[in-house]
């Protein structure tokens, strides 16, 4: 397949279609609307299911119903819409049916704005809905990665009967970059045994997330937790840049990660031995990789487009062995590479204290408007 120039949103949509998407249900919200629009053209022309739902509540529950039939299904939204989907996501996790969710994050909280942000990390990575549940979360940083991870998302969803979230920010959704799409995969014909179908094989199946008897619920909880251990063991993904001889590590995901790459290159050009670790799977988080790095480097700089959400996971992995600094921009403001370069230099040249919290030090450095 030749490379094509695509927006992140449409690339994800077409990648999902080529991965054998049977049904899409969604609701318009900037900055992910191109994804829904692409689906509205392509799915009907391929004879597949597309519904523009009445709300994100409608969309996620259509996905829930469709997922119960064992088909490949997905929805997409942006921050406020994802909040509305939380109920359905939890039910889907509790029913153990696979689905793919694309979250194109924007500035918040509340209505916020439509500019790129990463402030929903905790909502998805450490949440995703009520109850003990663990969505797999993949964070691409380029159009090509968005394509590849979308395809992977369906396989992982089915393998672990799990929710897989492709988490990007508005800029990747809107950005155009060359990417290579996979060939069109045939639609799945095999129906998983658990899927409802109307009992035409003489077997009766019910799917629900109810376990009214607490010990039964606990059995389910344990099953989900053990399945999650398996995910943690097998599905950690990340990308390393210039880490071989690095004495300092910058880490960030998605757009913040790729912006940091420019800063790391600029620092390298000035002779600073710094590298970049860009987590791709945010859940499971590359905790061990960071723990190992913390044995041999002198410090970490976490950059995010939020107030330090992945920061907490990095700190847990570093476990106080080395200093950690944080630099974030919020509310739809995107950090430029020179800001991150400045932070790298500050970390390298100054003494970063081991005491105190990097978030407090960062807030101290940020301007005060009132």
């Amino acid at each position, binding site marked *: 397949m030749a490379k094509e*120039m695509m927006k992140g949103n449409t690339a994800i949509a077409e990648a999902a279609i080529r991965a054998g998407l049977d049904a899409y249900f969604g609701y318009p919200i900037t*900055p992910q609307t191109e994804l829904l629009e692409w689906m509205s053209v392509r799915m009907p022309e391929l004879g597949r299911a597309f519904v523009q739902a009445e709300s994100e509540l409608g969309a996620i529950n259509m996905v829930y119903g469709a997922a119960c039939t064992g088909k490949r299904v997905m929805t997409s939204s942006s921050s406020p819409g994802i909040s509305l989907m939380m109920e359905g996501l939890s039910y889907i996790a509790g029913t153990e049916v696979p689905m793919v969710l694309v979250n194109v994050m924007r500035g918040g909280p509340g209505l916020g704005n439509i500019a790129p942000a990463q402030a929903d990390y905790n909502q998805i990575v450490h949440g995703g809905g009520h109850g003990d549940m663990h969505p797999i979360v993949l964070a691409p940083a*380029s159009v090509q990665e968005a394509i590849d991870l979308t395809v992977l998302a369906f396989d992982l969803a089915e393998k672990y009967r799990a929710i897989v979230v492709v988490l990007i920010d508005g*800029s990747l959704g809107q*950005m*155009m*970059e*060359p990417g290579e799409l996979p060939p069109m995969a045939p639609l799945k014909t095999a129906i998983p045994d658990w899927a409802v179908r109307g009992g035409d094989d003489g077997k009766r199946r019910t799917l629900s997330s109810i376990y009214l008897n607490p010990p039964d619920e606990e059995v389910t909880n344990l099953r989900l937790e053990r399945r999650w251990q398996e995910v943690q063991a097998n599905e950690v993904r990340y990308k390393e840049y210039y880490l071989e001889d690095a004495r300092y590590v910058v880490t960030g995901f998605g757009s913040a990660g790729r912006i940091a*790459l420019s800063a790391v290159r600029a620092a390298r050009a000035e002779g600073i031995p710094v590298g970049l670790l860009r987590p791709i799977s945010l859940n499971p988080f590359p905790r061990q990789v960071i723990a190992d790095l913390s044995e041999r480097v002198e410090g970490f700089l976490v950059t995010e487009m939020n107030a330090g959400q992945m920061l907490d996971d990095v700190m847990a992995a570093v476990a106080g062995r080395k200093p950690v600094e944080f630099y974030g921009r919020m509310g739809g403001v*995107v950090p430029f590479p020179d800001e991150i370069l400045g932070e790298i230099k500050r970390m390298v040249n100054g003494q970063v204290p081991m005491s105190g919290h990097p978030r407090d030090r960062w807030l101290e450095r940020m301007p005060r408007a009132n």
Partner: protein
Amino acid sequence: MQTEIIIAGFGGQGVLFAGQLLAYAAMEEDKAVTWIPSYGPEMRGGTANCAVVVADEEIGSPFVKHPQAAIVMNLPSLDKYEALVAPGGVLVVNTSMVDRPCQRPDITVVEIPANEIAERLGDRRMTNMVLLGGLLAQLPVVSMEAVDKALKEHLPERHQKLLPLNRQAMQEGASQPARV
């Protein structure tokens, strides 16, 4: 090797399309490229801009603060980007839409009355192509041939007849003098 370009102007001046053409041309030449628009309510009738990064290796930030080159198609864009162009860079100004000269002594300035040229060519919509030609003459980040090919592939069917005029507009722009 990485080149960063910002194109800015009013919505409707072909700002985003000019940037996309650059991006398509870069892809044509097998380069890494990103194109990112300012998106949102400002797209609807207000100012629009896009950043294009062309490189030989994996691109880090698609966001650009100090571009090597900028095309500014109106006064607000001149006011905003004049100061941001990197020293030694290129600023292409649509003088039809600004009422003051560029003040920077440390950059190459190409001042083009692009609206007038486009009108002389018979189609006001060629303004962006005139300016793009002016840019590529000073900063050959992609070849004119690659842009030509990109145009051919990405102009909607109903506009294919405008291909020769687009080419001519680029050449007119490329022949405009630069002030170094």
